[in-house]
């Protein structure tokens, strides 16, 4: 019962802030509402007993990505902040398409019989995640490390001011 109430409160906060992020015309408000939505997703992870993922979500999404996005907004914003985030001319088709897809997705999910296991969830997730990551998925782990390095170097190279030959 309390689980259900918590789920609905968190779901309403997450979906509501995501929806307000889309409809807000001030892009700075959009970024802050995206932050609320990410924190709501972290709370959903806590409900699903994935505590390490919840911490990673808060650190990476709510911390790093929001800071990145706000940096980008401040770099590219000009003029009146209240008009920085308008809809383009295909807003109505996009809204109709998204609504149809939401309904189709919900109907498909509710119609399907999922193979639910009655096994109790693990008490302690961090050590099992670490064990999987460093044994079975160690190649993917190393490739991800290389990818992050490449992304960092790539971002620096792309942003770096190109000196014009005088």
């Amino acid at each position, binding site marked *: 019962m309390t*689980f*259900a109430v918590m*789920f609905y409160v968190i779901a309403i906060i*997450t979906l509501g802030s*995501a929806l307000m*992020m889309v409809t807000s015309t001030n*892009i700075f408000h*959009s970024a802050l509402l995206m932050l609320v*939505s990410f924190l709501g*997703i972290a709370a*959903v*992870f806590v409900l*699903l*007993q*994935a505590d390490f*993922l919840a911490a990673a*979500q808060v650190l990476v*999404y709510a911390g*790093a*990505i929001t800071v*990145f996005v706000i940096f*980008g*907004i401040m770099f*590219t*914003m000009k003029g009146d902040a209240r008009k*920085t*985030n*308008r*809809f*383009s001319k*295909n*807003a109505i088709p*996009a*809204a109709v398409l*998204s*609504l149809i897809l*939401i309904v189709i*997705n*919900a109907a498909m*999910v509710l119609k399907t019989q*999922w193979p*639910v*296991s009655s096994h*109790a*969830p*693990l008490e302690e*997730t961090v050590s*099992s*995640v670490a064990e*999987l*990551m460093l044994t079975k*998925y160690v190649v*993917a782990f190393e490739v*991800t490390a290389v*990818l*992050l390095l490449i*992304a960092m170097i790539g*971002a620096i190279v*792309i*942003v770096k001011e190109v000196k014009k030959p005088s």
Partner: protein
Amino acid sequence: MTAIMNIGLNHFLVLSGTLFFIGLFAVLSKKNVIAVLMGLEVMLSSVNINLIAFNRYTSPEILTGNVFAIFVIALAAAEVAVGLALIVAIYRQRKTAEVQDYDLLKW
């Protein structure tokens, strides 16, 4: 009533699907390129709910879904760094952050 109050896998899947399509709506309908990027982040993040929900309800004894979600988070961080670098580089050239003005490759 029990289907509504008894939270199971279905509820989390509907939540993550709805969040995904809200992100898709932002990607398709916004003018500002950073708003498009924000919609993309919400989409990536909602996929993680899906992975963790399946992990929790169909195979809670092995945490493969959690590991996959960690890889998705790392990819999202790399993607937003490179994406914003591209936006900043294009902004230097064209002095605009609106998607319809990014038409250099259009003929």
